[in-house]
Structure formats: C-alpha cells, structure tokens
C-alpha cells in the first residue's frame, strides 16, 4: 500500500492541484446552495478575512508547513506518519515547559535549548512507532494514529496538573523572555515563519542534492532495487520517521515560543491532520508544501468568520477540505477527465470523417 501511494504522488503538479482546488470550490458551491447560502457571499467572506489578516494566516502556515514536512519526509522514505497531531502538541508542550523554566541561560541559548528539547521529544515519539514497525511489524499508520490519542490525554493531564500555570484555565506558565522567538513589529508572525520556510527549502535541498536524500527517496520508491544498491532501506525508513517527528514537534515549538508564549490545552486542534492534507496536495514536494500550507491556512483562518457572518457552520471548511483531498487523491482524476473529453472529441471527429 505504501508503495502505491508513493507512485500516485509523482511530482508536484501545480496545474493538477489548482484544477482540484477549482473543482472543489465548484462542488462546495453546490453544497452551499443546498444549505440555502450564497456561495459567492460565503467564499467572499472567507477570502476577504484571509487576505485582511494575512499575518495570522502566515503564523498558522508556519505550523502547517512543519506539519506538512512531518508527513512528506517519512512518505518519501516509504513510511506513513499519521502522528503529526500528537507530535505537535508534545513538541509545543515541551517548548512551553522548558521555556517557562528559569534556567539562568542567556536569551537565544535558552530558546535553542527549548527547541532542542522539543525536537528530542518528537524524535522519540516518531522513533517509537518506527521501531514498532521495523522490529515488530506493527503498521506505523496504526501506531502513530493511536499515539495521537494517548498523547492528547497525557498532555491534557500534564497541563491540568503538574505544569499548570494559571488557576483559571488549563495552560502552562508563560514562556520567559529569554526563550522567546523574536517577532516583527505590528504583525502576528515571528522569525519562526522564516525558520519554517528555510527548513522546507533545506528539506528540498537534502532530497535533491545530497547522497543521503537520494538514498531516502530511492528506498521509498523501490525498496528492492535500493537494497540491491546496498542501501539499508529499514534504516532509511527509520530516519524518515525521525525527521518527520522532529519537524512536527518543531512546528509546535515555533508556535509556542514565537506566537502564543503559552501552551493551552486546545492550542493545536487539527494541525496534524491538516499536515497530511498539505503534504498530499503538494505531492510531498517541500517547496510545494510552503504554498499549500499557506492556502490551507487561508481557508482555516477565513472560515473563522464564515459562521458568524453568513450562518454557515464552520464544518463546511472540513467538507471543502475533504473535497480537495479526494479530488487530488483519486488516482489521476484530472487525467481521466481530460481523456474523457479527448475521447468525445475524437469520436466526433471520426463521425465527421464517416459523414464526409
């Protein structure tokens, strides 16, 4: 199954992605008409909000980029990391805890230390699932999904009890000044966004321009041939998962250290699963992920005001998102539409010849 997914998601094809998005907008419009809402009004409100608060969009896109990488890198190596959700909250909480402690470290170093701790936690979590899969043959799809639930409850308990920083709500202590990622004046996003974009580019560089990246890709696409080339495919899968876990936990840490400065129990709902969608839309291309995560952030942020202003439930966004993914994932859906039209066209031509 893993390999099938790999083969369907060839290169990032912008045309195909745009086509799917357009078609999803169209189907979404029909859906809205059933709800007796005006599609133009809903879409208008949504994208108006998204463009007006574009800094918010970018802040969200920062986390989503990392969530996308968390899926894309393991996928390239032939593994499926569904545990972004859990790895993000674990990374975020770790960063909040370490960032909230007075360790006597100078500014910057404290922040790096917090990031490092978050990375370590993400690595351990993903590594656990990778080990289960490689040593005990437990599907990493199942184990990472299950880990999401386990982590969600553990993190909730940690925030409620030992690391509670506020009497009134389930949240940690504020992150100290020394551990914060610097922001920019007047906008919501911080240097974390720059880090995330750079990490996407580095991932691309790693996959395209380095020997290890080549081994990783080859191992994911054809494990047998890779083994014949002396590549240890199991090790590649393990590394893919570890890097994925690191990416996800960094996403959580960036948001906590560079945006919220605090970990709240509901900080990161749905981010991990959006990451899967983002990676799919970008066909696991790290540069494509930068674009698709901004797009995903736009519809997420835009949808915040949809229900208030138009009365359509926010669940509509989930429907919309589902439509896009379905259209993208159905193998060569757009191709088959093209061939369908081509066939009709050629048939007409043939009939014309016969008549002539």
């Amino acid at each position, binding site marked *: 199954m893993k390999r099938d997914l*790999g*083969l369907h998601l*060839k290169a990032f094809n912008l045309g195909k992605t745009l086509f799917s998005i357009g078609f999803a907008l169209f189907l979404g419009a029909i859906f809205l008409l059933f709800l007796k809402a005006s599609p133009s009004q809903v879409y208008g409100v949504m994208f108006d909000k998204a463009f007006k608060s574009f800094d918010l969009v970018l802040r969200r896109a920062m986390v989503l980029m990392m969530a996308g990488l968390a899926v894309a890198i393991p996928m390239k190596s032939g593994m499926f990391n569904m545990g972004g959700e859990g790895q993000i909250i674990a990374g975020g909480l770790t960063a909040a805890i370490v960032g909230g402690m007075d360790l006597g470290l100078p500014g910057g170093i404290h922040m790096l230390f917090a990031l490092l701790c978050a990375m370590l936690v993400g690595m351990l979590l993903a590594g656990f699932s990778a080990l289960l899969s490689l040593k005990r043959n437990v599907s990493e799809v199942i184990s990472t999904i299950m880990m999401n639930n386990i982590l969600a409850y553990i993190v909730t308990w940690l925030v409620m009890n030992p690391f509670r920083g506020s009497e009134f709500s389930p949240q940690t202590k504020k992150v100290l000044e020394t551990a914060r990622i610097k922001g920019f004046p007047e906008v919501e996003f911080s240097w974390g966004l720059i880090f995330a974009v750079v990490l996407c580019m580095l991932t691309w*560089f790693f996959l395209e*321009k*380095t*020997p*290890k990246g*080549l*081994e990783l*890709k*080859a191992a994911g*696409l*054809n494990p*047998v*041939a*890779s*083994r*014949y*080339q*002396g*590549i*240890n495919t199991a090790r590649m899968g393990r590394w893919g998962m570890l890097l994925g876990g690191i990416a996800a936990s960094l996403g959580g840490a960036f948001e906590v250290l560079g945006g919220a400065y605090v970990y709240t129990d509901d900080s990161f709902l749905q981010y991990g699963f959006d990451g899967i969608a983002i990676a799919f839309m970008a066909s696991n291309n790290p540069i494509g992920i930068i674009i698709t995560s901004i797009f995903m952030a736009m519809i997420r942020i835009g949808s915040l005001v949809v229900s208030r202003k138009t009365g359509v439930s926010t669940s509509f966004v989930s429907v919309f998102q589902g439509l896009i993914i379905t259209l993208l994932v159905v193998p060569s859906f757009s191709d088959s539409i093209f061939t369908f039209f081509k066939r009709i066209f050629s048939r007409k031509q043939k009939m014309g010849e016969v008549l002539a």
Partner: protein
Amino acid sequence: MTTTIIQMQQISKCFGNSYANDSVDLEVFKGEILALLGENGAGKSTLMKILFGLYSRDRGNIEIDGTRMPMVYSPSDAMHLGIAMVHQHFKLVESLPVAENIVLGAEDKILKVTYDRKKVRAELDKLYEFTGITLPSDTLIRDLPLGERQRVEILKALFRGCKVLILDEPTTVLTPQETENLFELLRHLRKQGMTILIITHKLAEVLALSDRVVVMRRGKLVKTLKTAETNAAELANTMVGYELKSAKVIPKSCLGLPIAMCLDDLHTVQDQGCSLKGLNLSLFSGRVVGIAGVDGNGQSELVEVLAGIRKPTSGSITIKGENIGKRNDALRQKSIRIIPEDRHCQGLVLPLTLQDNLLLGFRNRKELRIGPVFRIKEVRNFLERIITDFDIRPGVRTQKVQLMSGGNQQKVVLARELSQQEMQITVASQPTRGLDVGAIQFTHSQIIGLRDEGKAVLLISSDLDEIRALSDEIAVIHNGRIVVQKAADQLDRLQLGLYMGGGTAEEEKE
C-alpha cells in the same frame, strides 16, 4: 487398452514475433503418465495452458475425450470435460482450512445452502479412500508445508471429478522425500484410471515416473519416446539438441590466476524459492565463470547473497583471503557490482530520473561530493560522460527512467554497474534477457572487456548458448548446489544437459 483421451493437432501459438508452440501434435492415452520434457521456454507450459483453456491457440485442433474444442474456451470448460491443472504456484486460500479449500468453488456439488460439515467430511473421506492419503482437514493452509499444499491442490482437482491431471513443474518446491511421496500418489492415481500429464525438466523424474516422454525444444515437439526404451543420455541429447551455434571466444589461459572470490559451503534459509544447500564456487581474476542451470535452482538466491540482501545461514565468502561470512551487506559497497536479472524490480527505481538512477551507484564517491552534499557540476560532467560512453538514449538527465525503452533501461543498469572501475568482481544475472541483437552484442563485448581488464566475472544465464559463448569456465547449478565446475571446453552440451537435469557422473558414462 490404448484409448486416446486427448488429441492435439498442429497447435501453434505466437507471442509477439516468436512461436511458443509451432505445429505441435500431441496424443495422450487414457490411464498413462506422460512427461513433457524440455528446457525453460521450450513451450511445455504454453502447450498445457492451451489445453487447459488459459491461452487460446492460433491454429490447430484440440479434441478432449471425443469433444471437438472451439478455438476459444475457458478453463471452466476444460474442467467440465475433466481436465485439471496444478500450477507451479499454488492457488489456495491460505487462511482457510484444508477441507474448505478442497470444496471451494465446487461446493454446489454437495452443498445446498449452508456449509454442512458432516457432508463435506463424508465426501472428503471418500476422496481420502480413493487416493490412499489423508490430510488434516481442519488445518489452515498456511500452516501446511509446501508438499502437503500440493496434495490439497491435487485433491481439489479430484473433487471436481477430473480425469486428466496436468502438473506444472510439481517438484520444484518439494524436498526429495516429498517428491517420492508425490510420485507414489501419482502412481496410485494411474492405477485408479487417471491420466496424468507432468511438465518437467528433470531427467530423473521422467525416468522414474512416466510411461512415455514427449521432448520439446524451442516450441517444437522433437520426439516422443517410450520411457522403458530410453535412457538419461538420449533424453538430455534430445532436450538440448546437438547444434553449436555461437563462436567461442578464445579462452585465456588461467593457470596461476589469482582467486578473486571463493564461496564455501553456503547455505540459506528455505523459503518460497530454492535455498542454497552447500554451494561452492570459485571466481578467478580475468576469467568469466558461467553458471548454467534451469531457472529456480538457486540462482536468484546466490545473487541475493552476493548483493547482501540475503544472509547466509552458514558457510564462508572469502575475498582476497578475507572471510566476509555473514557481513555480506558490505560486499556491495566495496567489491561487487551486480547486474540483476529483473531490471524493473531490482535494477532501477523507475519513478526516479536517469540522473538519480545512475547516481545511485556513485553516491559514495569522494570526488562527487563535498561532505554530505553532491558537487553539482562534477556530478553533471561525470554523468554526461557515462551517458555518452554507453550511448543511452535519450540522454536527458532529467528523463524519468520509466519512460525509456527496455534496451536503454538495461543500458542504464549496465552503465551504472560497469563504470564502477574499482570493483573487482562483476555478477551479471540474465544480462541480455529481453534485449535486441545490437544490445546483446554490446553487453557481451562489455563482459569480455571486463575479463580482459583482469576482473572476475560471474555470468548467470538460462541461455546455454550465451554461457558457452562467453565463459572460460562453466559451473552447473542444480538444487542449490554447484554440481560441476570445469573449463568450458571440457563440457559439451550433452554433459551440460545431463548435469542441469540433475544427472550424476555415473549416468554420464552410460
């Protein structure tokens, strides 16, 4: 006594440009065991698949039990007339028990609406009595050894009321003991009036089991012989033919040449294929050692061990006096280049580009990288040179390999492996399979070139002509062992055929 049950006349079947069957006449008598003997690709299986209705014939007539068969019919039509086929790879549901596998697909013969265990049991007991064997009816197929699974297949056929049983290479997966049991069962069935057709390339089996032998070569029926009136030598002779076609490359004198690699008593785990059972083999620098043998006698396993994919369970691999043993995964990086038999599965990563596929072989070269990163410019120049040297078309580095032609894909594999000058040993497994004449010649000249450079070459091929044309030394592999390794001019086709069929030195003398 001799009533004809199957009559096939002038059967021809084309695959592409080549005849798999060319005007074959076959007559099968009721109650006999008829062996179809021939090398790989001689057309035995094709003929039987035509009879069973899996393939449709291009020309010719088939009569089964007096029924004239139409040009196109299906296996269920054939089964209706009492023909059953047991394939080389069993078609059983592994998660169901024996009893259910036997009745599956034909359950309406005895069952109405529900699965009546008692009725099935009674029916199976009848079968067991008829065949004289008993199987554990409630055991799941996946828990059975391969020999037992084959019995399930045979019982399945009998349950459907078959009168003619076709067995395709039934002994390849069996141990000697299981083979003996199978033969006993088949003899018993013959006594009960069954007609049995057995496809094989093993001489010993033919002699031990059959009443008559039909020998096929290159799609044609060469000879029909009574088993009692023939011997191993005559059969081998007929099977491989006399003609020597290709010119021999002058063998270099090998005395005093250094041993490049020595494999000693290699064993591997028994799984689906044929395991290595104590394989000994020596490779010399500057010589081509050709491995002849019928497919599925351990060739793939040997390549896998040399590629470092399969761990040997015991035995030693010695290269330049150093015993590698079980650390064979390092072999590939240091000293062995491998041209695998299946380029799509084992040789190439099809969705990757030409550049990436070539680069897989050179990714660890110091001059192509700075630390952990490729030097883009050097890589480009290096690969451009290889692409021109091997004349890979189209030579666009960003072309996806899956869009290239078969010959050029093979060139990619060759270019990658053969350009690794530092490697002392080359393993080429079926290097010319599926290539056109020009590409074959190119590959052959490359292999000879390697030898003349003083490299050791191991050539594995099911094409005897290729082996004989290129090798300085020939080793014959049979059932996971090298049965003979001699200088090429000391083995003629007849002897090779004998060894390949599992014959021993004594039979050779007869």
